[in-house]
Structures are given as structure tokens and as C-alpha cells.
């Protein structure tokens, strides 16, 4: 909070008494209360359409509540008890975590590597940056449909390429693990370039003389990358991991549209790639409209996101907990 406005009413200048005291009082009221008016839209809209629904989800989850909702019965934690004994629920938990793990780890490593490539003296600097960001600005639904075809069994291009190098085609949609890989490929295709640009921005904030000092100490480039760049990037990496966790565990559009037809909301006939958000959706909306049960799924997903985010942060704090000078400086910049 650097420079601040003086909240006092302006000292009436040369105009003398021509301006009545009323104007002074009005401008005092204006200075004191108008800020609340300016921030009010955010808080009103968020309260109604963001905070309230999230909190009310918990209340709904304690009821047997259907579409008509005329007579919801309070059933305590019954929905949760049922859910914890529900095989399909646990199946979707495993799917969600599986897709999350095999998409996030390579994605962040690739992004680091790509950022390191972009952080050099390059011709067509902006062109390269735009190229790696293009996947991120395409329509998610469109891309999911295209990848669904690329990973098709008979005529998909991926299996055709595998065949070219003498490998057997893979059942990308009906094999559980293969479908995780295909969906992860889709997620990574979309987000690697975006994360690379974020890492690149943070890399550019690292002072050059730190590399010079490391070079004088005899560190080669690879060593400099792991001992200078990565530790200094830690706050940014944590930021990206948290964002990826929140987004990755709520994955919906990609797996939903990777499949097509009547089983699509189940992520395939045997729920090969049904994520938790899809399971919530399947229960809460057409055709079942089981609001209570769906809400319980939503809250457990919420809990899962919090737990996984916390674990991730702990792990990353641990990794190379050593040298991290100047981290405070960047955090300080955000105030």
C-alpha cells in the first residue's frame, strides 16, 4: 500500500465561500463510502452465485433431495455412508487421481524444459511463444473431440503411427490405463505451453549474476539449471502445482467428450475414464437428478482437492529445501 489518497476533503481553494458546505460534506461521503459501492458488485454476485451454492451443497448433501425438491428429507450423513461403500465412486476416485498424476508430473517437467529453451537468445521470440500457447486458446470441447478421433482404434492416427513403427494398436477408449494416458495427453497438450510461459516469466526475474557466480564455481549448464533455476522457481512451481491440482481434479470436459454416445457421461461402458466431476454430474443431473447424492460427491471432491493440494505443497517444499535466496523478494512484489 504505497501512496494513498488523502481522505480529507480538499481544502477549498481560492473560490472562497462560493461553494456551500454541502458540497464538502457530499464529497466527504463520496470519499468514504463510494469505494464500497465499487467493490459491491463483485461481492454480491460472488455471494449469490459462488459462495452460497458451495455452502448450500453441504446442506443438500445431508438430505434425500430429488429434482422436485418438494419434500427433502433430512437423512444426516447417509449419503456419505452410502458413497463410501459405492464401488463406482471409488472407481472414479482412482480414475481422477490416476489421470491427475500421469498428466501433471510430465506436464510441469516439460513446461520447465520448454521455458528453459525459450529463455535464450532466439530469433522470432514472440512467434515461438505464440506457437506454444496456441493449444491453450483452442476450444476445449473441440480439442476433446479431435483427440477422440486421433486416438480411435481402427483409423486413429496414433495407432497408425504405432503400426508404422511395428507396434500393436492400443484400445485407447476401452482399456482403462490407456484411456488415462490419452486424456492426459490431451490435458498436457493444452497446458504445457501455458505453464512454460509462466515459468519463463519467473526465469527472467532471476538475476544473471547468479548464473555467473555459479559458472565461476564450476557449475555447468545442467547443474546451473537444477541448482539455481529450479530452486529459485519454487514459489512459481508451487503456484502452478496448486492451480493444476484445482483444475486437474475437477477434470470434466476432456474425458466427457473423449467418449461419445450414451455412455459418455460414464467415461466409457465400464467407466474406464469417469472422473469424480463426471460422477457427480451423472448423479445430480439428467436423468437421475439425485441432488443429495451428487452434493455428497461434490463435497468429498472438495476435500480431496484440499488434501492433494496440501500433500503436493509439502512434497515440493521438501524437494531441495536448501538454497532459496531472494524468494522473499518475489513474494514481496505481489504484496
Amino acid at each position, binding site marked *: 500500500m504505497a501512496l494513498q489518497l488523502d481522505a480529507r476533503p480538499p481544502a477549498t481553494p481560492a473560490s472562497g465561500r462560493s461553494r456551500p458546505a454541502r458540497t464538502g460534506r457530499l464529497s466527504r461521503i463520496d470519499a468514504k463510502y463510494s469505494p464500497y459501492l465499487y467493490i459491491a458488485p463483485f461481492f454480491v*454476485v460472488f455471494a449469490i452465485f*459462488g459462495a452460497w451454492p458451495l455452502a448450500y451443497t453441504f446442506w443438500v448433501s445431508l438430505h434425500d433431495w430429488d429434482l422436485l425438491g418438494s419434500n427433502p428429507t433430512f437423512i444426516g450423513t447417509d449419503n456419505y455412508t452410502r458413497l463410501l461403500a459405492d464401488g463406482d465412486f471409488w472407481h472414479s476416485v482412482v480414475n481422477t487421481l490416476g489421470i491427475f498424476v500421469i498428466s501433471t508430473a510430465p506436464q510441469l517437467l516439460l513446461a520447465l524444459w520448454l521455458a528453459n529453451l525459450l529463455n535464450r537468445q532466439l530469433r522470432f521470440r514472440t512467434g515461438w511463444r*505464440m506457437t506454444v500457447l496456441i493449444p491453450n486458446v483452442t*476450444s476445449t470441447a473441440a480439442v476433446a473431440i479431435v483427440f477422440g478421433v486421433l486416438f480411435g482404434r481402427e483409423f486413429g492416427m496414433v495407432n497408425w503411427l504405432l503400426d508404422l513403427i511395428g507396434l500393436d494398436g492400443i484400445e485407447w477408449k476401452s482399456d482403462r490405463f490407456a484411456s488415462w494416458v490419452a486424456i492426459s495427453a490431451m490435458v498436457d497438450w493444452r497446458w504445457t505451453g501455458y505453464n512454460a510461459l509462466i515459468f519463463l516469466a*519467473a526465469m527472467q526475474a532471476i538475476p544473471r549474476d547468479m548464473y555467473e557466480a555459479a559458472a565461476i564455481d564450476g557449475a555447468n549448464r545442467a547443474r546451473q539449471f537444477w541448482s539455481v533455476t529450479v530452486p529459485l522457481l519454487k514459489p512459481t512451481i508451487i*503456484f502452478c502445482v496448486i492451480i493444476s491440482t484445482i483444475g486437474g481434479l*475437477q477434470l470434466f470436459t476432456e474425458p*466427457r467428450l473423449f467418449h461419445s454416445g450414451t455412455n459418455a457421461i460414464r467415461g466409457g461402458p465400464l467407466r474406464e475414464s469417469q472422473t469424480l466431476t463426471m460422477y457427480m454430474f451423472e448423479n445430480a443431473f439428467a436423468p437421475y437428478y439425485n441432488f443429495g447424492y451428487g452434493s455428497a460427491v461434490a463435497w468429498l471432491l472438495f476435500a480431496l482437492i484440499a488434501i492433494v493440494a496440501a500433500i503436493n505443497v509439502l512434497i515440493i517444499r521438501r524437494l531441495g529445501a536448501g538454497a532459496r535466496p531472494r524468494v522473499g523478494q518475489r513474494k514481496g512484489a505481489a504484496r
Partner: protein
Amino acid sequence: MSKLWRASPLTYGALIAAGVLSIFPIYWMFVVASRSSDAMGQLPPPVTPGDNLGANIARLFGNTDAYFLAGLINSAIVAITVTVSVVLFSSLAGFAFAKLRFRGSNALLMVIIATMMVPTQLGVIPLYMLMTKFNLNDRLPAVILPALVTGFGVFMMRQYAGQAVSTELIEAARVDGCGTARIYWNVVVPALRPAAAVLGLLTFMTTWNDFLWPYAVLNDPENPTVQLSLRALSDGYYQDMSQVFTGTAIATLPLLLVFVLFGRQIIGGIMEGAVKA
């Protein structure tokens, strides 16, 4: 800055590989969109454009399951309304947080930052109930209303206003008898214009892309957003892939257009936000 590592041929090789991977699925989408429907069953898969695009477009807009034109129009209405609203409210609130002194401003700003971390998508069930109650199901306001503000937008504008809006100018305007509203309009808005443009572009693209909530609340097949039209095409009984791909290509086109025109600003916005956040 001149001491950046030199790029080796290997660097360019790796970047070209990354670039090909990035662009190919989009390119191939347009290839299939321009071919006849038997392109899907060919091996090796076709990788050059055909001459069937016009016919595919005609069939797409004539498809009685997808309501593609309605989807395009609806998506445009939703995305433009949301963009205007997000930019307006974010700049107002960002200005207040950056430049005005009021009780509780720090705590309230923390609340806004916290909202960026909350998975609000998990509140769709009560949101659906709310829309049912107000009889907004199957109608565009149900999609527009929850998106009118974003914590990200307020935070971004607040960060930018802190450095771009001159405090001296605000004080001078006050001395001249300007109220806060006029200061916002005459001093703040001109200074915020570059950041407002980036926020607008990002908001437009996110909103155009939105899938889960519209899918939940817009159940009338005749009144979809364009992403829902794509879903209808993709889930159709007969799968005419060149027609489906024509749909995905057209739905992606506005986003690519925005990116080609304003890519530099978008990249700047993402990278600046990263250093500050």
C-alpha cells in the same frame, strides 16, 4: 539481458518439434473439415486439405440436431455480455482497492484472492436449483449471471492500477472538485485500458469455452451454446466426422482470430500476471 544463453541448433530443433505438436491437431481439424466424410476411414490418414469445406458447412448449418447457428449466436451473446461485465466491475473494484482508502480494504482483498482458489464448479447443484426457482433454466441468463464477476479480474486490475494510475493525477482531480465517479471515468479508465483489453480477451476466451455449467443448465437442444452444439454433433447416432470437424473448426475460429490479432498482448498479460501473483 544480452547475457542470455545462445540458442543452439538443438534448441531450434526442439522448439520446432514442440511447435509441430502444438499446431498439428488444429491443422488436422481443418484438414478433415475440408474433406468428404469418407476421409475418416482412410489409411494413411489424409493430411492435406480437400475441397469439400463448403458442402460440409452447408450440411452443418442444416443439421437439425445440432442447432449450430443458434449455438454460435448464443455463445456470442454470452461471451460478449460476460466480457463487458467482468471488465467493468473488475476495473471499478481494482481501482478502489489500489487507490482508495477504506476500512477493511486489506481483509476484503484477501477474500477476493481466496475466491480464486475455491473450486466454485462444485456448487453447480444448488446453482441449478436456484435457476430452477427463478425459472431461468434453459435460458441464457442462467449461464451469464454466475460469470458476471471474477476474483481473478479484480486482482489483475488492482495490480495494474497500483502502478499505472497516477496518484498525483487523482489528487489533482479531487482538488478540482471531481467526485470519485468522475475520477474513475476520466483518470482511471484511460490508464487501465491496456490491462482491460487483456482481461477482456482472456474472459472472452474462457467464457466461449465454458462447458460444464451450460451443459448442466441448458437442456433444451434448440437453445445451446456452441460447445453444446459440438457435444450434440459428437454424440449423434450417425457420426459424420467431416461435419463434426467442420463444427469444431468453426467453434475454434473466433478464438484463433482473437489470438492471431492480440497474441502478443495476451502473452504479456499471462507473463506479467505470473510474476506478480
